[in-house]
C-alpha cells in the first residue's frame, strides 16, 4: 500500500464529522530493509500532530526498531507521546536484551493478545506493515 493511500486512510473520517481519535500501527518487518518503517514513523508523527492517540506495535523483525542508538530511532516517536510496545518473545528470539531497548518501550510477553484487544475495542483504524 502506498504512503499516499495510507495518508488518505488516516485523513478519512470515521463517521460524519467525527475525526479519528486513535490509531494502531503494526510493524513486522526490519527497519532498514526498505522504506516501510520510515513510512510508519512518518504516519505516526503525522497522526500525533493531528491530535490522535498513536500506538505502535512491534512484532517479529519489527522489534529491531526498539533497539537503542539507531540513527533515526524510535526515541523521537516516544518523545512525542507515541506509545510503543514490543513483543518480549520476539526480542528474546533475536537475542535483544531489555538493556538494549529504548527505556520507554513497553515490553509485553503476550503482545498479540493486547494488540487484538486494542484494535477491536479501542482503535478507530489499524494499519500493518
Amino acid at each position, binding site marked *: *500500500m502506498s504512503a499516499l493511500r495510507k495518508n488518505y486512510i488516516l485523513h478519512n473520517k470515521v463517521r460524519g464529522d467525527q475525526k479519528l481519535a486513535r490509531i494502531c500501527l503494526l510493524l513486522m518487518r526490519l527497519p532498514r530493509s526498505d522504506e516501510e518503517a520510515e513510512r510508519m514513523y512518518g504516519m505516526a508523527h503525522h497522526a500525533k500532530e493531528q491530535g490522535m492517540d498513536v500506538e505502535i506495535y512491534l*512484532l517479529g523483525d519489527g522489534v529491531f526498531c526498539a533497539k537503542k542508538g539507531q540513527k533515526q530511532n524510535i526515541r523521537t516517536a516516544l518523545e512525542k507521546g507515541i506509545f510503543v510496545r514490543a513483543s518480549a518473545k520476539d526480542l528474546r528470539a533475536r537475542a535483544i536484551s531489555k538493556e538494549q531497548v529504548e527505556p520507554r518501550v513497553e515490553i509485553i510477553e503476550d503482545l498479540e*493478545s493486547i*494488540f*487484538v*484487544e486494542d484494535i*477491536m475495542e479501542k482503535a478507530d483504524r*489499524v494499519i*500493518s506493515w
Partner: protein
Amino acid sequence: MVEGIRNKTLALMLFSSPYRSQYADHLCRIAEKAMEKGYNVEIFLYGDGVHAQMNNQTPKTFFNVGESLKRLAEKGALIKSCLICSQARGYIEGDFDEKLGKYPSSKALNTVEFCTIYGFVDMILKADKLLTFGSS
C-alpha cells in the same frame, strides 16, 4: 470466551507464503488470540499467501502454519482462498463440483473455501477491522 463481543469480526489477509517470512505465523497467532477472546475471524489467502493452505505441512523447527489454519477452522474461523491464485499455483484439479459444492483440490486443506476476489470484498464489508500481512 468473553460474552458480548462475539458479533465483532476481524478480517486477516495474507499475501506472503509461509516459511519465507514470519507473516503467516503472525497472522495465525493473532487469529488464535482473537478467537480465544471470542471474536469472529475471517482469513483471506491471496497471491503467494495461498501456499499456506497446503496439506501435510511438516516444518521441522518452524511454526506449523497449516496445522494452525486447520485448528482455526475447527474453532470456527472462515478461511477463504483466491480461486485464480490457487489455480495458477496448481491447487485446483478441475471444474466446480456441483455435488460437493466446491472445487476439487487434494492439495489444499478441506476447510478452505475457494472464491474470487469478490469473496474478499464481502469479507471486508462485514469486518470490523482488517489487517494485511505481507507485501501488497
